[in-house]
C-alpha cells in the first residue's frame, strides 16, 4: 500500500501517476474465516478495520452483494452531529464524533470531516422548549450545543430569512459547532483500504443466500453466490436489507424498510456555511465542498425496497427549504436519488448480540446512520471480538423492545399541545 501524503502525491505527479497501487484488492473468498462481516458499507468496513487494528483479528472477510460503499454510505447527506437528547444516544454519537476528528489520520485517507456546525431551527414555542431541553442535557453530558437567538442564527447562517411574516418564523436555534459533514465515499474507501492492508478480504458482488447454523444453533458460515464460507462469527451490517438476511438465520427483528430520498442543487459558489435542520418544516440543508446544496427530509410513507421514492416528498422538501431560504427559489435541483433505510419502533439503532450464538447485528439506523459510522463500527467490532457489548452500545439491545426500555428520541420531540 502506498502511503498517502503530500510527498507521495508530488512524487507520483512527477512520474505521471504510474506508480500508484490498488487501494484494495478485489478478493475471492477463502474457505474459512474467523469473522465474516456482511455488508461492505461504512459500518461493515469500519468494523473490519477496528477488528484488525484494535483486536488483532485479521482473518476477516467483508462481503457485499454489490460494490463496496454502494448502499446508504454512498447515498446519504453526510450530516455528522451528536446533539441527541438521551444519554445513551449522546454517548454513542459523541464517541463517533471523537473518532471522526482523527479518522483521516487513523486511515491515512482524507475523509474531509468538516466541522462546520449544525444549527437546528426552532419555529414554535414547543420547538424552543424541546431544543433547550437538548441544549441543557448536552451541556451536562459534555456535548457542545448552545442556544442562539434568532439574530445569532442569522449571523451564523446569513441566507436565513428572519422575516416575521414567514409561515414559520425563526424563534432561535440550537447550534452544535463540532457537528458537520464528511466525504461519504472516502469513508468507505478509507476503511476498505486500511482493512485490506491489514489482511481483511473484501469480496464484492457476492450476495449472501443464507446464514447457516450448526446442530447447536450457533453460526457455522454463510452460503453465498460464490459458495459456502465457513466462519465462527458473523456481523450483519446491511441497513435496509437486515430483515431479509437475518431471516435466513431464523431471527426476526423489529424493523421496517422505507425509501429515503435526498437531492442536490447545481453547484454554487460558497453561500451556505453550515448545516441547518428544521423539524417544523421537515428538511435539512448544507453545501458540499463541490458547491452543491445537499438537501433531505424524512422517508416516504410506505415500506419499499425500490430506491425510487415519489415526487410529493421532493415537492414538500423543496417548499420547506425555500420557505426558510427564499433566495434559493431560482436555484435548480440537479439530481435526486433514493436509498433504503431500516427503521426501528423507537428510531434508535440496534447494535446487539442475537439469540444465535456468534451472530451479531448492527442495524436500525433509519435516516441517521452515516454520522455514527466510526462509533458504530468501533463498538460493533468490540462486541464481535469479545462476544460482549461495549459499554457504549450496551443499551442498544434487542431486548429493549420487550422490556419497554426504549431510547425514543422521536417521541421526545413529539409535537402536541
Amino acid at each position: 500500500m502506498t502511503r498517502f501524503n503530500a510527498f507521495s502525491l508530488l512524487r507520483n505527479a512527477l512520474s505521471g501517476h504510474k506508480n500508484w497501487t490498488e487501494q484494495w484488492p478485489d478478493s475471492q473468498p477463502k474457505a474459512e474465516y474467523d469473522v465474516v462481516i456482511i455488508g461492505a458499507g461504512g459500518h461493515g468496513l469500519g468494523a473490519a478495520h477496528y477488528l484488525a487494528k484494535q483486536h488483532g483479528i485479521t482473518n476477516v472477510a467483508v462481503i457485499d452483494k454489490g460494490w463496496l460503499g454502494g448502499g446508504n454510505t454512498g447515498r446519504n447527506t453526510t450530516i455528522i452531529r451528536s446533539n441527541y437528547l438521551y444519554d445513551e444516544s449522546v454517548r454513542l454519537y459523541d464517541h463517533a464524533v471523537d473518532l471522526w476528528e482523527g479518522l483521516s489520520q487513523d486511515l491515512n485517507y482524507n475523509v474531509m470531516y468538516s466541522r462546520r456546525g449544525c444549527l437546528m431551527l426552532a419555529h414554535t414555542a414547543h420547538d424552543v422548549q424541546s431544543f433547550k431541553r437538548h441544549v441543557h442535557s448536552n451541556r451536562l453530558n459534555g456535548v457542545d450545543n448552545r442556544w442562539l437567538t434568532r439574530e445569532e442564527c442569522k449571523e451564523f447562517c446569513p441566507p436565513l430569512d428572519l422575516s416575521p411574516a414567514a409561515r414559520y418564523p425563526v424563534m432561535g436555534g440550537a447550534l452544535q459547532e463540532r457537528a458537520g459533514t464528511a466525504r461519504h465515499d472516502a469513508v468507505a474507501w478509507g476503511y476498505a483500504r486500511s482493512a485490506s492492508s491489514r489482511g481483511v478480504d473484501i469480496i464484492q458482488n457476492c450476495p449472501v443466500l443464507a446464514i447457516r447454523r450448526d446442530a447447536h444453533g450457533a453460526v457455522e458460515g454463510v452460503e453465498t453466490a460464490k459458495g459456502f464460507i465457513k466462519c465462527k462469527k458473523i456481523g450483519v451490517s446491511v441497513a435496509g436489507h437486515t430483515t431479509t438476511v437475518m431471516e435466513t438465520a431464523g431471527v426476526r427483528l423489529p424493523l421496517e424498510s422505507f425509501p429515503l430520498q435526498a437531492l442536490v442543487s447545481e453547484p454554487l459558489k460558497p453561500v451556505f456555511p453550515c448545516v441547518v435542520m428544521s423539524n417544523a418544516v421537515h428538511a435539512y440543508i448544507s453545501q458540499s465542498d463541490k458547491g452543491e446544496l445537499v438537501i433531505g427530509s424524512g422517508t416516504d410513507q410506505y415500506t419499499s425496497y425500490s430506491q425510487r421514492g415519489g415526487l410529493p416528498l421532493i415537492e414538500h422538501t423543496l417548499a420547506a427549504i425555500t420557505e426558510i431560504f427564499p433566495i434559493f427559489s431560482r436555484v435548480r435541483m440537479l439530481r435526486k436519488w433514493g436509498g433504503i433505510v431500516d427503521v426501528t419502533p423507537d428510531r434508535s439503532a440496534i447494535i446487539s448480540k442475537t439469540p444465535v450464538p456468534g451472530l451479531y447485528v448492527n442495524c436500525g439506523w433509519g435516516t441517521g446512520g452515516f454520522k455514527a459510522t466510526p462509533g458504530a463500527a468501533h463498538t460493533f467490532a468490540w462486541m464481535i471480538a469479545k462476544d460482549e457489548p461495549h459499554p457504549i452500545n450496551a443499551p442498544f439491545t434487542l431486548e429493549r423492545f420487550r422490556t419497554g426500555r426504549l431510547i425514543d428520541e422521536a417521541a421526545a420531540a413529539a409535537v402536541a399541545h
Partner: protein
Amino acid sequence: MSQFRVAGRGRINSGRRVRFTFDGKEYSGLEGDTIASALLANGVHLVGRSFKYHRPRGILSAGSEEPNAIVGTSRGAGRYEPNTRATVQEIWKGLTVTSQNKYPSLKFDIGAVNDAAYMLFSAGFYYKTFMWPKAFWHKVYEPFIRAAAGMGVSPSEPDPDTYASRYLHCDLLVVGSGPAGLAAARVGAEAGLRVVLVDENAEAGGTLLSEPQAQINGQQAWDWLAAELAGLKAKGVRIMTRTTAIGYYHQNMVGLCEKLTDHLDVLPKDMPRERLWRVRAKRVVLAQGALEKPLVFHGNDRPGVMLAGAAQTYLNRYGVKAGHRPVVLTSHDSAWYAAFDLEDAGAKVAAIADTRPAVRGDLIAEAGKRGIPVLLSHTATTTSGRLRISSITLAVVKDGKTGPETRYACDCLLMSGGWTPSLHLFSHTQGKLAWDENQNTFLPGFTQENCGIAGAGRGLWGIEAALADGLERGREAAAALGRSVDAAPVRVENDRTGTGVSHTELPTRRDAGKNKSFVDFQNDVTAKDLRLAVKEGMRSIEHVKRYTTNGMATDQGKLSNINGLNIAAEALGKEAPKVGLTTFRPPYTPTTFGTFCGYHRGSHFEVTRKTNIDSWAEENGAVFEPVGQWRRAWYFPKAGEDMDAAVLRECRATRAGVGIFDASTLGKIEVVGPDAAEFMNRMYTNPWTKLMPGRCRYGLLLGEDGHIRDDGVIGRMAQDRFHVTTTTGGAARVLNMMEDYLQTEWPDLQVWLTSTTEQWSTIALNGPDAAKLLAPLVEGVTLTEEAFPHMSCVECTVAGMPARLFRVSFTGEIGFEVNVPAYLGRALWDVLWEVGQPLGITAYGTETMHVLRAEKGYIIVGQDTDGTVTPGDAGLSWAVGTKKRDFVGMRGMARPDLVAPGRKQLVGLLTEDRSRLEEGAQIVFDPNQPIPMTMAGHVTSSYHSDAVGRPIALALVAGGHERMGETVYIPMPDRTIAAQITSTVFVDPENARLKI
C-alpha cells in the same frame, strides 16, 4: 448581418434584432436565437471556464446537454439565476449574461494556475493529502477547498416570480417531438386517444429542424413539419414546447416543467414563470432521440471545438456558421453531412478526418465534389490556441501505430464520436438496459411501466426509420388501449442515415499519462484520471465516477458517461456492461426549486387554520403563536405591556373576576351509537359505563405501548353519545387511531365517529364571576352548584344560540365551556364581551391558560409528557380503570421497564432563590459531580405565578413521587439553582374555588 450569420439559412428570420449584453459588452442577435447561437453569430466562442482547472471553454453542443457554455442570466432585481445553459436559453431584449467561474476576467483568469499544476490535481488527489498537520485541515486546507467550490454565484434576493402546478390526465404522452414522436402522436390521435406531445425546445420538430434537405412524402421537411403540426393540433393533440419531461415516476406519472416567461422581453402580469405538470398517462412513448458523443483526445476542449451535429443545428436552425475554416474529426458518418452543409454555406472545410479506414463511397464522392480534403484512418494528437482553437494536429494510424503528424489551421473543430440513445426517463422507471455489441451502446430493455421507446432512443438512425418506428410505437400504444388504426408508411428522400465506430481515447504518439483528453468537460475529468482510478482499484463504474467526478457535472453525464465507461472498461480489460452504467436520476435537466414548490410558498407553504373568533383577537391586538396548523392568540398586550406584564394581568383578572378564552382549536370528536360506551371503555383508560348522561369525565388515551398519547374532557351527552375533546395538535391523530380500532379490530361495535372540531366554536369562561356572567344568558339549565355541578354538560341555549354547555375548568376557577355552531362563535364572543364589561371581563391567550393550569398541576400532553410517560409517571393513576378487562395500552403499561422503580415522575418544583427556571433545564441530585453528570429529569413547565407569588415549575424527576420535600439542583451555565420537590398542585388543593 454579421459575417457568421448566413443569409437564407435558418428558421429565425423574423428579422427582429434583439440586443443583450455578455460580460458587459452589448451584442445583437435575432429573435429566436439562443444565447449560444447569438454569440456564435458574433464570432464569440469563449463563454466560460471549467470547474477545476479554469480552462477557457466554448460552446460544445446545441442543447440541454451542454457542459461548457454555462452562464448567469438576469433581468433585474431578484431575477438573476446562475448556471443557465447558453445553448437553451433564448435571448430577450435587455438580457444580461455573465460568464462564471473566473477572476478577474474570462480572458485572464487567475484560477487557471490550477491548469499548470494539472499533474498534481489528479483524480482523488484530496483524499491523499491535506492531512498534516492535523489542525491545518479545519483552519487552512478546508476553507481553501471550500472557497474554490461551485460554479455560478447564488442568487441573493427573494424570487419575485410565481410558480404554478397542474395535473393532467391523458391516454398517450409522447416525450420528444422529433420524427419518431410526431409519428407516434399522429397514430395516437388518429386512434382517438387523448394525446399530449412535449418538447424541451422552443420549437417542435427535433431533428427535422436541422435537416431541411429531407423530403418527406415528397414535401420539403419544414413544409411537411408545419402541415403535420397543424394536423396534430386539428386532431386535438396538446403540443407543449419549452416543456421538459423531468422525471418518470410510479405508475406512468411523468413530471413536466413548462417554462412560460424566461424567453419574453416583457413579463406578463400575473403569469407564473414555470409550471410543474404531473401527467398521468395510460401509455407513454419516449422519443428523446440520441446525444452525440465527443471524441477524446489531447486538447479536445478548446473554445471552437464543437460537436458536429451542433454545428449543423446552428447552421440550419439559426443560420449561423460555427466558423469560416472548420476541420471535421469524426468516427461516424453523420459529421460528414455537417461538413457538406457548412461548405455549401460558404465555409471552407480544411479537412474531414475520419478515424475509420474505409468510409461509404458516396460520402467520399460528395467531399470530392466540394473539394474537401479527406483523411481516413486518422487520429488527432493535439490542438493549439489559447482562447480559441487555431490548429489541430492530425496523424495517420497504421497497424495501431501513429504516423507523422500534420498541423491543420482552423477556426473551429467539429467532432463526432457517434451517438448515445437518450434513455434517461426510461432509466427513471428502473428499466433495464441491454448492451448492444454492434453499436457499442446501451439500448432499452424491460420496464415495468406502460412505456415504449421510439426512434434514435432504440438505436435507429435516419428520419425514415424514426418515423416508421414512431408509427409502430403509436400503434402499439393504441392497441394496448383497445384501439386499432392504420397508418400509412412515410417515405423520406435525402435522408441521412449512417453508421460509425466507437473509440476510447484516440491513439496518440504522445505520453498518454500526460494528456489532457477531456471526458467530462465541466468537471475536468480526463481519460488519464479514469485510468488512474482503475489503477487504484476502482472496478465499478460507480467507484470510478465518484473517484473522478466523471458524469457528476450539471449535464449529469449526458456527454461523458459512455466515453467514461468505455475508457474504464478498456483499462479494466472488461466488457463495458460488466463494469456497469451509473443510474440516471431525475430530473432530466436541472429544474428550479420554485417549480417544485409551486404554490406552496409564503403563507401558502402550509395552511393557517383560524377560528371563527380569530378576527376578534386580531382586532384587539393579540400576539399570535403557531400551534400545529392553527394560529392561536398567545396574549393580549395593552399599550406599554410586554408579554410578562400582559400575562400577569390576564392571570390576575381571571382569578379575581372572569376571563374569556377562545378554546375552539381543541379537537372534538362525536362518538355515537349503541356501543359508544363500550368503545370508549376500550379506547380510554377510564371507565365510562357508569358515567351518567349530562356528566363529564377527564379522559386519558394511551398508545398500545402504555405511554400517554392524548387527553381531554369527555361529556356524555346521551346514553349513546359522547362529546370527546382532544388536544389541539392531537385531533386528527386521535380520530385516526379511533377509526383504526373501530374499523379493523372491533367492526362489530355499533359506533360512528365524526370529527366536529370545525363544527363548534368553543369559548371558555373562567373565574369566580363566570357563573354570574353566564347565568342570565342561559336557557334550559340553572347554573347553580346543585343543578349544574362541576363536570356537567347539557344541551341548552346561550344568548339565544343553540349550545352545548360544559362545566369544566382548566384553571381551578369556576369554569364553563360554551360550544356553539362554529359560525356563531364570534357573535357569542361579542355578546359575552359586552355583557361581561361590568364584571371587568378579560380576554386571555394560550400563555395565561398555560400558567393557570400549571398552578393547578393540570398537565399538557406533549409538554409535561413526551411520549415516554405512563399514567403513573404523570400522577394520573386515578384516571386508569384498573378493573376493566382491557383498554388500549393496558398491556403495554405492564411491561417490565414501565413498572420498574426509579421512573421519571411528574412533580412540582419551587426554587429556593425564587428564580424562574428555564423550561428544558436538566435536574441533578448531586450538583458537585463532574461532567458527564447523571441527570435525574428535566423542567417541563415553568412560569411566574401571580397566585402563588413566586415562580412555579413542573418537572419529571426520577422517583419523584417518593422525594417530596427533597432538594434537587438545576445546573445552569452560570450557576446552580436549588429547588424543592413539591406537589404539582400549587393553588387551591382542596378545589374549593371550583364551587359556585
